[in-house]
């Protein structure tokens, strides 16, 4: 990348992923500044027009449906593979074998390595494969496209938002630095106790195992999390606590798959930020914040595509870095 504005934002977004609040950019490219100025003059009427048009428009769920389908297929594939004994995808989300190839969840592997302080070859192979896989697919893509807790939390979120609309509850936001803290706490706990502490409370592992090996009382913990999210704080576990998200977020820093924002066509209605699990990555869509005309969304983005679905102007699209240049 030669663009200094995007470079600065790139580093900025890493800090934002770790919990810093998104700030106004310190410098904006000339092209983007021109557009910002132009928009200030014309945006008002255009926005109103767009709002009306948008309200009439049918809601699009293309990416959400694709994503839910993938998530269900992947998780049920584990279950079917075991129940039908076809041995194609053995294990659970923490570690598995796909037609014999080891796949090991990065965060689980990290916990085991820190707790056991010894790394065996299979662990390295499995972790490496999964690292490359999510590097190619977008890092936190794991969260929204595979993690079964994400789907449960999405449904809980719908209830939460309905209750908010009825003014029965309010969303209590929490400091995002907590996630970085919990990542460190669980890493230290694993080293100090020699036990994979996080794995015993990870809703991802618990739900995945429940789907494959049958439900257990551990699901009560998952239920408690969902209740907390419904009545207290929107998507609290994924937003503020889950270290798996941060681990895959780090992978996402280097991933070519991301959502791209185009300033020119954006009306700044902010609908994308309302549906987003991690709205801090979309701070760039706020009026006057975009540092350039085309901006890749940051590493904490789960690439869930809700914003792509909801954007009425197509200003947010999936993008593979370098691919458009190649084609």
């Amino acid at each position, binding site marked *: 990348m030669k663009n200094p504005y995007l470079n600065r934002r790139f580093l900025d977004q890493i800090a934002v992923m770790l919990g810093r609040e998104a700030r106004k950019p*310190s410098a904006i490219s000339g092209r983007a500044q021109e557009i910002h100025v132009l928009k200030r003059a014309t945006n008002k009427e255009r926005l109103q027009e767009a709002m009306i048009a948008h309200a009439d428009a049918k809601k699009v769920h293309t990416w959400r449906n694709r994503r839910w389908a993938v998530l269900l297929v992947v998780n049920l594939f584990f279950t079917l593979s*075991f129940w039908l004994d076809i*041995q194609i995808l*053995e*294990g*659970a989300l*923490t*570690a*598995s*074998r796909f037609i014999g190839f*080891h796949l*090991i*969840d990065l965060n*689980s*592997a990290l*916990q*085991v390595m820190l*707790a*056991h*302080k*010894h790394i*065996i070859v*299979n*662990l390295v192979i*499995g972790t490496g494969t999964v690292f490359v896989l999510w590097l190619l697919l977008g890092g936190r893509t794991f969260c929204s496209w595979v993690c079964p807790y994400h789907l449960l939390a999405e449904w809980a979120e719908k209830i939460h938002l309905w209750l908010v609309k009825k003014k029965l509850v309010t969303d*209590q*936001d*929490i*400091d995002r*630095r*907590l996630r970085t*803290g*919990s990542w460190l*706490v*669980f890493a230290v*706990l694993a080293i100090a*106790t*020699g*036990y*994979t*502490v*996080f*794995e*015993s*409370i990870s809703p991802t*592992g*618990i739900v995945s*195992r429940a789907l*494959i*090996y049958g439900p*257990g*009382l*551990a699901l*009560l*913990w998952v239920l408690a999390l969902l209740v*907390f999210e419904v009545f207290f*704080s929107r998507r*609290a576990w994924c937003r*503020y*606590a889950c270290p798996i998200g941060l681990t895959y977020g780090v992978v996402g820093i280097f991933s070519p798959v991301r959502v791209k924002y185009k300033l020119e066509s954006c009306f700044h209605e902010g609908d994308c930020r309302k549906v987003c699990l991690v709205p801090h990555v979309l701070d760039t869509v706020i009026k006057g914040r975009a540092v350039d005309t085309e901006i890749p969304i940051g590493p904490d983005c789960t690439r869930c595509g809700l914003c792509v679905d909801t954007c009425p102007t197509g200003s947010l699209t999936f993008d593979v870095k370098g691919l458009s240049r190649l084609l």
Partner: protein
Amino acid sequence: MSETKPPAAAKPPASRERIQQARRKWLRTILLTGGVTGAALSGFLPLVYARTKRLRPPGALDERDFLASCIKCGQCVQVCPVQAIKLADLVDGVGVGTPYIDAREQACDFSCDAVQCILACPTGSLVYKKPAFLGVRKGAKLAAAPILKAKEKDPEPTLNLSERIGVARLTRPEACLAIQGKGFKGQVRGASFKGRLRYMEVDRWKPIGVSEHPYDLAECDLCVRECPVKGAISIETVFAPDGSKRKSPVVHEPCVGCGVCEMICPVEPTCIVVDAREVWNT
């Protein structure tokens, strides 16, 4: 940015409401931190309750190392032909999602021949042979590779296992049918028992339900008869405390702790159990 701002642009003092909001948010953060940490502490329960010894799958590392390295994926569960391995739940107190064997319900009968659970384990929690840096407890190491009765006639009759997972012990000799000189006829654990076992004379590769295989024995020797390991247990003539001679099952050094004797014992409750993680004491 280094340039000094004019006083007019300086940050206005935050309103009382703003300050309160920030304070509340901070409180909530602390609350959630406490909640998550508290829940995390529940993860230590298995360490606290490490006293409740559970039989781990064959080849399991010593308990502490096992808990450290198990990634809780259940691949060992999936490959077991008799489904002896189960995953622990929250209340079992041996670590959520970690595998264990309830030998009385379904013992490991080595009908896979190759100890496939070890082969399946991706993190080395189950191993054929421990890596050099891990110590072996005295008496845990098997004197020789166990010979599997089922493949005694094969060119390679041994089981790839270097340490035992427990040792069988006659806990209720007074109830033991062999000691009383009694026989046994019928289904050993009743018609509803789900446990399975490999019977070589029925099918080498397909274990069948124990209830489908009734016995008619003049003298009960089920624990010896069905033990999958050669020389691990035998009926011996021993002296009773009153000096009289009688027959009794006696456990020997090759016992690996698979638990088939515990499963097959027809007496309720069982007369013979596997002491999980026990070592051989001479």
